[in-house]
């Protein structure tokens, strides 16, 4: 009974904590190599540190693992259209953590010259400024309200 109560308490705490903003860790740069269909091929330690995932969690998974429900499909369509045509895309994105919380990341995606292991795209996520976060928070809020 005690064990069940403990678990309920943990669930309560986890639920209470979900969808909270998590600060981007100073000095970190998340680096992700993606294949042609957006599946994660290789990542660096910063991604694990920032998202709370383990090394084995991401293998064979799509980038959508980190897609926050507040970001509309049209944003991602726009990203893939742009990088698919050989350009780089840059923007501030709300990134979903394993625990349901999120962080804001200044994200750049570009097609890469060298294509080992069938990787096609390189993605970096860096710490944005507070101003950039506020601008994008308003933007996504407007989109979700249908403004």
């Amino acid at each position: 009974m005690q064990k069940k109560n403990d678990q309920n308490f943990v669930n309560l705490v986890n639920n209470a904590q979900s969808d909270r903003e998590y600060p981007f860790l100073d000095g970190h740069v998340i680096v992700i190599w993606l294949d042609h269909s957006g599946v994660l091929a290789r990542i660096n330690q910063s991604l694990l540190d920032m998202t709370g995932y383990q090394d084995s969690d991401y293998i064979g998974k799509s980038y959508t693992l980190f897609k926050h429900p507040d970001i509309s499909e049209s944003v991602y369509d726009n990203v893939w259209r742009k990088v698919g045509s050989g350009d780089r895309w840059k923007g501030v994105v709300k990134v979903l953590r394993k625990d349901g919380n999120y962080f804001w990341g200044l994200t750049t995606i570009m097609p890469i010259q060298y294509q080992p292991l069938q990787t096609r795209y390189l993605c970096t996520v860096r710490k944005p400024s507070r101003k950039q976060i506020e601008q994008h928070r308003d933007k996504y809020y407007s989109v979700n309200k249908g403004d």
Partner: protein
Amino acid sequence: MSSALNYSVSPYLFQNNKTVWTEFEKLLLKKTKLSLQFKKYSSPSAFNKDFSKGQLGLIYADPYHASLLLRNHSYMPVARALGQYDEAIVAVRADSSILDIQDLNPQMYLSISVEPVNRLLGRLLLQPADINEDDMVCRYHRTHKSVVRDLLLDKTDVGVMVARNFDRLPFKIKSRLRILVRTQVYLFSSLWMLSPEHTEQYPALARVFNRMHRNAKGSKILKNFNTKSWLNVEQIKAEEMADLLHMLK
């Protein structure tokens, strides 16, 4: 039959200690029958001139030059130092009122050492404050020592330098400074790069680097490079580093 191979190091990695290079040359000659000729440059521009002509057979190159050698001159990566990554730090005086990177503003003075990767990583570290080095009053220096001097003499508000250079400062100096932020990318390394005209030497060179830590003489050489061993570097890792540098610059 022995053949001569001229070699050098990026100006940012140069050690003005002749013994380091003599011992390195002796070991390579003994293990590979390869005669090395060290080319010392009086200035980064003289190095860049020979570098851009692809006139050096073997180069210990900082990440930026290694990427250029790889992409523009088809050099092959041979080895990197175990556990050594190029990271940058932003530091202030210990008694500074600046407590966070977001306390920085464009009116402040910035001193920065000019290693290309340091400048790139410095830009990343300043970005959360919505400023870059062009916004600030900048003092550029060849070495981190001048950046440290600026900080200690109150000639600048903030300094950016290669993290390992900061780490090697005497405690007495370090204790008068405070790190605001340090990059943790762990993907940029200085690399030994071999010219495409000498690819037949690759197996022998890779083996010597790989085994250098196994004897006393080799370990002594490694100590001069502040590492315990060299690790052979796959082409893919060097390519990934070049892609990442290209993206972040």
